[in-house]
């Protein structure tokens, strides 16, 4: 029966995999071993694996300097039996042994989401999202830069590459994390995903500006805005985790949504928390757009005065409530 020897790194990830048909396999740093190890704490002839007549495998320590271990801190004195799938250590070098009849995990089918996420790494998508982000910046500069300081246009435009570069940091961190976990880095799909989230936020921001103006800055508009931003962030982090980890789906979604809520905590707090009594300023929605952007009818004076009367009653009620507290 053949034996499979896996060489593992410190994170227990497989770095090499060997298959032997012979009943004895030598392990050590010397080049005439069957498995040549790199770790400097491993002896040139550290240990060997032997199969007995019953087909069982045994680890025999060859009087090594740093010892050999099987399932525990106690060093192997002469030899110790190894079961299929069990770990052993030569010094601090981990190895795993399998017999060829050991069962393997079920085949993981291609996932549609995974394929789509991978496909997003195409340069065309990255460019498309970057263009949307750049367009949002240009519109913002065009809307706000006064004519008397028009010479600042080039300076303000340099913010675009700066921003695009800055948002490379997050996918780079995720790529490094993946590499660290011995997985594919997926830098380009992660970058594309990050830019897509930024582009969606820009479009969502513009839509919410219009919505806020049309709903007269009501609480509903504010909730919709914050929920939207949280969902965009949730989707971004879910995609990030999908590409960077092999966590179960539920764990990925839970972690992504928690992270999204954490990042948006400030906006949620502003929405949910009551106004601070120390806050003397006036909070109102000052968003203005040209009249054709307003889809409803304006309130007549009579209706407006009724609304104001209600406001007086509401504020009076607030006064009574705070007095009671």
């Amino acid at each position: 029966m053949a034996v499979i020897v896996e060489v593992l790194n410190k994170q227990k990830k497989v770095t090499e995999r060997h298959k032997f048909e012979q009943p004895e396999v030598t392990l050590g740093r010397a080049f005439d071993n069957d498995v040549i190890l790199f770790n400097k704490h491993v002896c040139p002839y550290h240990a060997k694996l032997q199969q007995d007549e019953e087909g069982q495998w045994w680890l025999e320590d060859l009087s090594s300097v740093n010892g050999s271990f099987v399932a525990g801190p106690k060093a192997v004195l002469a030899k110790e039996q190894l079961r299929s799938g069990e770990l052993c250590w030569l010094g601090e070098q981990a190895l795993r042994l399998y017999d060829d009849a050991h069962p393997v995990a079920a085949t993981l089918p291609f996932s549609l989401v995974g394929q789509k996420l991978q496909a997003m790494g195409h340069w065309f998508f990255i460019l498309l999202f970057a263009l949307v982000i750049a367009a949002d910046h240009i519109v913002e500069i065009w809307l706000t830069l006064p004519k008397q300081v028009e010479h600042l246009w080039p300076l303000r435009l340099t913010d675009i590459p700066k921003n695009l570069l800055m948002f490379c940091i997050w996918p780079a961190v995720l790529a490094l994390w993946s590499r660290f976990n011995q997985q594919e880095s997926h830098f380009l799909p992660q970058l594309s995903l990050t830019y897509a989230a930024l582009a969606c936020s820009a479009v969502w921001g513009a839509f919410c500006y219009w919505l806020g103006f049309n709903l007269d800055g009501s609480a509903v508009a504010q909730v919709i805005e914050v929920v939207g931003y949280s969902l965009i962030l949730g989707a971004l982090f879910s995609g990030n985790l999908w590409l960077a980890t092999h966590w179960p789906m539920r764990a990925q979604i839970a972690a992504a949504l928690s992270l999204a809520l954490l990042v948006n905590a400030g906006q949620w707090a502003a929405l949910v928390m009551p106004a601070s009594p120390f806050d003397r300023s006036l909070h109102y929605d000052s968003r203005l757009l040209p009249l054709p952007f307003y889809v409803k009818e304006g309130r007549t004076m009579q209706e407006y005065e009724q609304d104001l009367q209600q406001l007086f009653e509401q504020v009076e009620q607030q006064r009574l409530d705070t007095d009671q507290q």
Partner: protein
Amino acid sequence: MLQKTWTSLMLLVLCCCSAPAYSAAVAEKVFADYADALLQIKVLEHASGAKSAIGSGFLLAEPHLVVTNYHVVSEAVLFPQKYQLEFLAQNQQKGKLEIVAVDVVNDLALLKTDYKAAKSFQLQQQTPVQGAEVYSLGNPHDLGLIVVPGTYNGLQKHSFYPRIHFTGAINSGMSGGPAVNETGEVIGVNVASAGNDLGFLVPAIALQKLLAKAPVADLKQDIQQQLITNQQAMFQQILQANWQLKSFGPANVPDEIVPFIRCWGTSNVEKDKDDVKRVNAFCNQPEEIFLSSEFSTGRIEMQFEWIQAKDLHPLQFFRRYQQSIDQMNADNRAGEEDVTAYSCQNQMISPVEGLHAKAIFCLRAYRNYPQLFDVAYISASLDHQQQGVISHFTLAGVDQKMALEFSHKFIGAVVWQ
């Protein structure tokens, strides 16, 4: 002829030289006669015994009461458990004082005492003539009681509240002291200074009204009633007035609608490079009613801005337009104990068929004075793509009826031509 002119000139010089000498002598006599009836008023904290505020006061002969400013003793009125009042007379005699009545609108307080002076003050019954000598007495900066000679210059113009214009230096700490004529009769009570020998006195008539008023059991409730009555009187005058409108760019806006509301204006039209032209008009009734060191009320402010774009896209123009309405603030001081947080309402209104404006109306209630509110309103006209008019007002210490009637009249008065 030459001799006659010479004599007249000599007489004029003599008059000029002798006037201060005469004034100083009278001042000295007034001070000597009434020094006993002049008191320093101290507000002391019960727990620490430390001075929290000081001011001046004087003893009236009939009725036997001490007069001072409300703002000197406000802490003792609002927090009687925490503060007490004490006087210090010229002869170093000390004693307790008790609050009998207050008039927050005219900043007066009457205090009960068992202190007796050799000669106490009387109120002057008739109005002095313009230019009459007036002597203001008080205790500036806690330096001891002094006398300041000055001139009576009639009632302050453009003021809702009757205040005597006194040309003489009223300094901090002289508040609550009397201003008297050469015979020592009180013509007013020191109340405020606008610097450079410009002082203001509450006329004796306001003091007479307070003396004639029936005693009240609950001072805070009485203050609330005074505030309500005062704002009703002020707003009735404003609402009944035929509002003067002035042309303001493409619109008409209210101008100096009543004598006590004054207006000013500025613009940036000389700055050719600016991509929007801004013209501002500002009107206000700046006099405040002091309620506590953190809380004042009574101000009215109206502001208008005409903003016109020079070759801007409507979206660009509206972003600049928005910047003009996103910084609205309250016009009066108020602490967290005094008022609720502002609640704002945001609406698109159509005050007249075919006209539209975004209107923001913010409101906060007075916690200790029910029925009174601070109001802040701002609106921006939206019917034009390259220009707009912003109209804004703040009202402090107003009841619901007056606030709604004022808003109605104000919104109706801002008309696009």
